[in-house]
């Protein structure tokens, strides 16, 4: 089976059912399937071949959904980027994965104007909502330009011939790397289908489910809401953000939403609102992942939504989801992230890779068909986390996360093995942020660390020293970072110090800085 068949099978079973709601617009499975077929033919005609990468750089929208499935139908690999990604990084990713096609909007194409000359592999750009001058600008950058709107109007509605098998790549999902450059997590059709099947099994999803999604489709948590609803033949209500909570709550009630995936930030906003005047008769479950919910939030959410099942979950892009806590365990072990999903094995090992017993801290290992194939063209980094498993030729995922289990096998997160910061559920490489700050005139030394934050998991803190005579303010640093890094990577705290603590070998000691941050 291939991933695009989630859509195709649902379009056969429920052609006239509403699959997607965005704003006031509703689209049936048949409409989306036909739109994806038309765009797939256009992608193929533009030169996209089996296994080629297609980058999708758009806000959450119908166009993103259609582009994802069109890419798969064309036999290609989709790469959805967070719509706040800055131009330099988009250029880096386009080149890193040697994308042959890009789907984006006229406005975003304007912001990418400097990238066309630097992306030799990129042949065609499909634009949505673009003016004639925006399209011309891309064309004069040497790219073949297609119009999303033109493709929608006409073209071949039928499904292109299948070329892939389920062990072919379906997507690259970019995540932060310890070297400071983003790494593409390679996932096959089988990887995604396995993870989506496991997750929808424990969430007990059916075709009656209506899930609302506020999370970017460029993050796997958001992406899977779409994939799982299309797998089940349910309905996805797609939003761009949770910025207007009342509008969101109205939507949940009006659209009779049954599933509400959240992250701790959304939970914090919900708990600030007066929800007493609302009823949520249709809401069946709330799921949380990204960062652990504070126990106090769990208690309050359960009081606000007494009839709703609350799923606490934990995941890694490299295998999508690691574990979930069955709702009936929430009162018994609220700080646990639960246990492995159906059809997945998770265990804790010592430094030699031997399994350890309960209560002992070790590295978490994940075994299952949801585990990625590796990092795109990074064999060393891949070998570092994918290691031989119990069967010949098999590779299991070493998570880099330290865990312990209780006597009944439930998992408890202890910390990271490396210095990667997990903030808002996203992994951020301190190195990537440091590299950006070092490029700012006047900066002498910088260390980026994570400090505990009840909502973000960890907040990013930059500690720096400036060159003699340099006048730098916190605003200067933040502005510089915001222009070059995605929103979640921009430090929350900036602190200037006269000097940074060093190790015996003269390297900046992050350990000492962290201790200082805790004491200070």
């Amino acid at each position, binding site marked *: 089976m291939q991933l695009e068949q989630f859509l195709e099978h649902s379009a056969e079973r429920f052609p006239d059912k509403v699959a997607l709601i965005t704003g006031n617009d509703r689209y049936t499975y048949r409409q989306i399937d036909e739109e994806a077929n038309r765009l797939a033919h256009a992608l193929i005609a533009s030169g996209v071949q089996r296994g080629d990468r297609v980058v999708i750089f758009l806000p959450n929208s119908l166009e993103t959904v259609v582009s994802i499935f069109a890419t798969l139908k064309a036999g290609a690999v989709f790469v959805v980027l967070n719509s706040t990604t800055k131009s330099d990084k988009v250029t880096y990713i386009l080149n890193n994965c040697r994308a042959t096609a890009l789907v984006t909007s006229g406005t975003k194409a304007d912001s990418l104007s400097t990238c066309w000359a630097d992306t030799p592999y990129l042949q065609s750009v499909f634009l949505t909502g673009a003016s004639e001058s925006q399209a011309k600008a891309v064309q004069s950058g040497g790219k073949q330009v297609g119009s999303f709107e033109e493709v929608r109007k006409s073209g071949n509605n039928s499904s292109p011939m299948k070329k892939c098998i389920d062990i072919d790549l379906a997507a690259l999902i970019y995540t932060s790397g310890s070297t400071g450059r983003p790494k593409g997590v390679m996932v096959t059709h089988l990887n995604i289908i396995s993870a989506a099947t496991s997750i929808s099994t424990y969430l007990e999803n059916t075709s009656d489910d209506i899930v609302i999604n506020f999370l970017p489709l460029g993050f796997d948590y958001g992406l899977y809401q779409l994939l799982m609803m299309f797998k089940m033949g349910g309905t996805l209500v797609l939003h761009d953000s949770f910025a*207007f909570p009342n509008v969101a709550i109205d939507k949940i009630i009006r659209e009779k939403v049954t599933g509400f995936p959240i992250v701790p930030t959304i939970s914090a906003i919900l708990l600030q609102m007066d929800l007493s005047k609302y009823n949520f008769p249709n809401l069946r479950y709330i799921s949380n992942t990204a960062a652990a919910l504070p126990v106090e939030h769990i208690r309050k959410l359960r009081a606000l939504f007494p009839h709703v099942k609350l799923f606490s979950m934990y995941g890694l892009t490299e295998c999508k989801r690691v574990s979930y806590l069955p709702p009936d365990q929430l009162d018994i072990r609220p700080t646990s992230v639960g246990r492995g999903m159906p059809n997945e094995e998770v265990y804790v090992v010592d430094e030699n890779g031997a399994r350890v017993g309960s209560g002992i801290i070790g590295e978490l290992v994940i075994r299952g068909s949801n585990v990625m194939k590796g990092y795109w063209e990074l064999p060393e980094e891949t070998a570092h986390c994918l290691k031989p498993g119990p069967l010949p030729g098999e590779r299991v995922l070493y998570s880099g996360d330290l865990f312990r289990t209780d006597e009944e096998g439930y998992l408890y997160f202890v910390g990271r093995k490396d210095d990667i910061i997990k903030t808002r559920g996203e992994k951020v490489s301190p190195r990537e942020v440091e590299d950006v700050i070092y490029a700012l005139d006047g900066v002498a030394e910088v260390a980026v660390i994570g400090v505990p934050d009840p909502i973000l998991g960890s907040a990013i803190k930059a500690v720096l020293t400036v060159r003699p005579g340099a006048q730098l303010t916190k605003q200067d640093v933040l502005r510089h970072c915001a222009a070059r890094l995605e929103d979640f990577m921009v430090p929350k705290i900036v602190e200037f110090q006269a000097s940074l603590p060093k190790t015996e070998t003269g390297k900046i000691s992050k350990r000492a800085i962290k201790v200082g941050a805790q004491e200070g």
Partner: protein
Amino acid sequence: MQTIDIESEIYKFVVDSFMFGQAAGLAYDESLLQRGVIDSTGVLELVSFLQENFNITVEDNEIIPTNLETINGIVAYVNKKLNGKS
């Protein structure tokens, strides 16, 4: 307070708080969300600012895109609230 003052105060707050002091051609009718200037926590910060700075009460059902998505929308909303008070 003059409309022009309200407008410049709001513009300054948005640019200082969410764009690190650099307006980079932010237009008064541009969606602050689409542009990635504010997100969900940004909206809450904006609401606190409006309440404190203009001494108005922002009701939950007023936190909607029409009132808060663009600089023009925010200015119109604050004017309406201030006029309603007097």
